[in-house]
């Protein structure tokens, strides 16, 4: 036998034995998946170091970080989402997670420790992407990295020293119920007001959040806390929910916003044809007096094709298609400043 042939046969035999050994581990249950003993030190080190370097390599550049990260409203929105979606594992500032969670492998880091060593861009990547084999889930909506910044704003506030008392104030439950925490009287000015929307529109939106037709990680989580059977009643209740008083020190809307809203242009359908007081379609939302930051965010989502909703969503994709950034900001300010019509008034 030639030397080459000896090498080839040896390699083939080794590969066969390795495959058999691997199959035995998988099919005979030889590997112990018990979480009791944790990882070997070396395994833990390899996994964690791999994770840290993966985040550093893939995190968005620092210039992608929005400049309103210290906006109290954004921090509050992030805090309320954290309180409902993340606190169970990471605990609120100054607290420790429950014993069951602490027995996870690896145990989720307590929130102050979790935020200590990361920059905002890196936090964004971790929250949006999740961490494989650690229990940390990805953001539950595709293409909504914009929402993740609210959580990053909160995490950055924790890193800057937000304490238990601040946290309790930020996440104080509303006597009007879970939804009102964001949308109600003490709600954040980042969440839309619901009192100007019809029950039919709210019901359609809730359905779209449930099915994912309207992607939103925050709302997908929030709606999963509510029994689907209660949606119809919930929609009716929510359309009566009084909103938070606003003090946005509103930018005055640019002059051409009203012209676009009223008559549109050769590229832009007139907003008020659908969203004006003359339109009686309950599935088309009124925008008068809506939260400016919300309108702006939604218009960007519409224009960029990332917003879903009911069947008529296709109309808004066409409508927002030609809007410039400047026009979007102007229109958001214009509708935020418009007086809220009295719903009981027939005209």
């Amino acid at each position: 036998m030639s030397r080459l042939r000896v090498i080839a046969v040896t390699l083939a035999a080794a590969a066969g034995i390795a495959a058999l050994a691997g199959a035995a581990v998988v099919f005979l249950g030889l590997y112990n998946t018990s979480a009791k003993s944790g990882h070997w030190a070396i395994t833990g080190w390899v996994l964690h170091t791999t994770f840290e370097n993966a985040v550093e390599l893939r995190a968005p550049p620092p210039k992608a970080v929005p400049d309103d990260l210290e906006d109290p409203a954004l921090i509050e929105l992030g805090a309320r989402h954290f309180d409902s979606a993340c606190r169970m594992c990471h605990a609120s500032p100054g607290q420790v997670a429950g014993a069951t969670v602490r027995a996870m492998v690896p145990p989720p880091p307590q929130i102050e420790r979790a935020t200590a060593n990361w920059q905002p861009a890196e936090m964004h990547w971790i929250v949006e992407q999740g961490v494989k084999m650690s229990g940390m889930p990805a953001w539950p909506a595709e293409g909504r990295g914009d929402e993740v910044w609210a959580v990053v704003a909160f995490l950055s506030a924790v890193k800057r020293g937000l304490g238990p008392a601040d946290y309790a104030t930020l996440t104080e439950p509303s006597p009007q119920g879970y939804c009102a925490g964001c949308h109600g009287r003490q709600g954040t000015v980042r969440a839309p007001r619901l009192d100007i929307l019809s029950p039919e529109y709210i019901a359609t939106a809730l359905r779209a959040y449930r099915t994912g037709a309207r992607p939103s990680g925050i709302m997908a989580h929030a709606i999963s806390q509510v029994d689907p059977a209660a949606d119809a009643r919930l929609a009716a209740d929510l359309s009566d929910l009084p909103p938070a008083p606003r003090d946005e020190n509103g930018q005055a809307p640019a002059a051409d916003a009203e012209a676009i809203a009223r008559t549109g242009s050769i590229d832009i359908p007139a907003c008020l044809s659908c969203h004006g007081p003359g339109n009686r379609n309950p599935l088309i939302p009124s925008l008068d007096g809506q939260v400016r930051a919300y309108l702006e965010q939604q218009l960007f989502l519409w224009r960029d094709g990332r917003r879903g909703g009911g069947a008529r969503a296709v109309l808004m994709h066409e409508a927002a298609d030609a809007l410039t950034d400047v026009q979007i900001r102007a229109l958001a300010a214009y509708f935020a400043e418009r007086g809220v019509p009295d719903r009981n008034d027939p005209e």
Partner: protein
Amino acid sequence: MSICRRIRALHPVALPLLLGGCDGPQSALRPGGQDAAQLYLLFVVMLVGAVVLWLALNGLFFYFTRVNQQQFSLRHGNRIIIGAGVILPTVVVGSLLAWGLSIMPSQRAPGDGLVIRVTGEEWWWRVEYWPPGADAPIVSANEIRFPAGSRTELRLTARTYIHSLWIPSLGGKMDMIPGRETVLTLHPDLEGFYRGQCAEFCGASHAMMAFESVVMAPDDFDAWLAHEAAPASRPQTPMQVRGQDIFRDEGCGACHAIRGTEFTGSVGPDLTHLASRHSLAAGIMEVERDDLMRWIAHTRDIKPQVAMPPYDWLDAEELAALAAYLESLE
């Protein structure tokens, strides 16, 4: 039209197949105006000339190879070559060039007053009539009407892509270019319907970008234009009223104007007198109940990539009411 008939008479079976394109409302061989007649004459002269030349050339070949095979003298040969090979083509091509150049300006001759601005959109035609002295246009779409017996100026441009306006029975084609204005003037003479078509490939629905053009007696045209300038009629029947409510509540007015109502959008075609037009969706369907219902619910299946979204959530009753309202917009 005469040449087609005459050629057709030669062979009753085969030629109609070949000459199917000669007839109908979209034929350059059936001129309905001065400009098309001029192009038609040019075509006929070229065709007849080409046939004569072809026969003469083959006649010469035949003569020299079969009839008279004698050797010619050098002088005689040179005379034939210089006469038939240099002088004749120079004279023929030169005179064709002179004639062609001399009739070119008439394709852009100044109009007699009426100006029609046409904008090529994706994939339809925005049409504005500017009668002499007007300070605002009379807006319409997807149909161009002309008064017979005078020269109308067409000022053309396009929205996003390059299109080309061509009414073969009335004249030549002219490109429509975004950000630039091109001018074409037409002098239609024969009253009737002529079909126009975009003649420059412009994207997914290029083949579905057509229109009707109508040449009318001057008095009829004036009466029609006055009616076109008037606001839309009000809905009469309960079904039409319901259709108008649906039109409003579905936000149709954000893109479509119906003058005399609250609907003032300018993204899509003006619908003020939709029902008096002879086609729907830029020359591809008719303005009648079934086509309207099918169009509104299935725009993008019928016309790929068109801007108007398909309103497929409307049920048959709603679509019928909407169609009834649109059909009432005479």
